[in-house]
């Protein structure tokens, strides 16, 4: 019985850690490029 409870406790801790890791890993992705977007204007259409 004690081993079963320990197993449950370990499973619960593992699930909690995986949730935290998953949530934290969904942050913004670091850019692999440097720069920005510029809207095409009149001179670009000549």
């Amino acid at each position, binding site marked *: 019985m004690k081993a079963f409870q320990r197993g449950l406790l370990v499973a619960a801790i593992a699930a909690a850690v995986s949730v935290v890791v998953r949530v934290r890993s969904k942050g913004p992705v670091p850019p692999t490029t*440097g720069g920005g977007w510029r809207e095409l204007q009149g001179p670009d259409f*000549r």
Partner: protein
Amino acid sequence: MSTVLVVGLGEVGVRTARQLIDTPGVDRVLVAARHLEHAREVAAALHDGAEPLQLGRDDPLPPDLGAIASAVPSDVDPALARRAVAAGIPYASCADRDASLGALLALDADARARGTRVVAGCGLAPGLADVLARHAVGALDSVDELHVARWGIAGPESASEARRAQREDAQEWRDGALVHDKHRHAQLIWYPDPVGARECELVATGVGLLVAANPGAGRVTARLGVPPTRRFTPPGRRDPGAAWGAVRVEAWGWRGTARTSVVYGVIERTAIAAGTVLGVTAAWLSDALPEIAAAPEPGAYGLGAVVDPVAFLAELARRGVKAAAFEGVAVA
């Protein structure tokens, strides 16, 4: 002055009709659906700027049409195109299934014989992406790589076509041959905000059109990303870019003695961008927008091969679909 028929009144078809109504050179817009009631509802939603029409598979096409703008599902598009060509009516289509694009281009001989034109791939990608690709290639002395990516869907039919494209074998153009790529390895593609970085898979859709319009490119790829369909989004996890559509075009080549890249992108609601591209193309085919390019010889083409990119992009910008250039250091 001319009459344009819009067939297929989904998300894209309705936007196409709106664009045609707002085009001064088009004096009459017909909106056609299988059921007259649906066509009437759309015409009413367009404040009666369009005339409703019932058009079944066997119904005759109306007389005196300047062009047909087709936003019907990809599987029925080639049959409608064949009817248009047989009647000698210019035809623009936003179908994006690779087999349908091939079927439209296969009408080339018939279109030549009837003295009319078929323009395939008049949506976001293929479509606007092809025009941006031509514009990017034009900024280089020579091009050796061309990479196109699209994010977003226009409606339920578009979503199922996009998922179908992701299931089918991917293809890329490599050194003069179409190569099947079984490893479709998703790649992170950077679009303008708010879409940002998205995983997009290699697909076959539109690669043939890009190669035909840019024969100098040694490598051509097309990628597609589909927003996930979620019934429930946890608080604070809403994705602001999921509802948008975007394209990114990256051309690598030579300018003088330096190897360099030109990157263009667009963000817009997918249906609005596709509807605007289809509407402008149909208006051009009906001679209502002659400034976009001289009318091509009769035949079947992809959009990127027949329009003047600068004039086409300027017309789209006037209608609110604006392209942007990436300025910085792109990573090959």
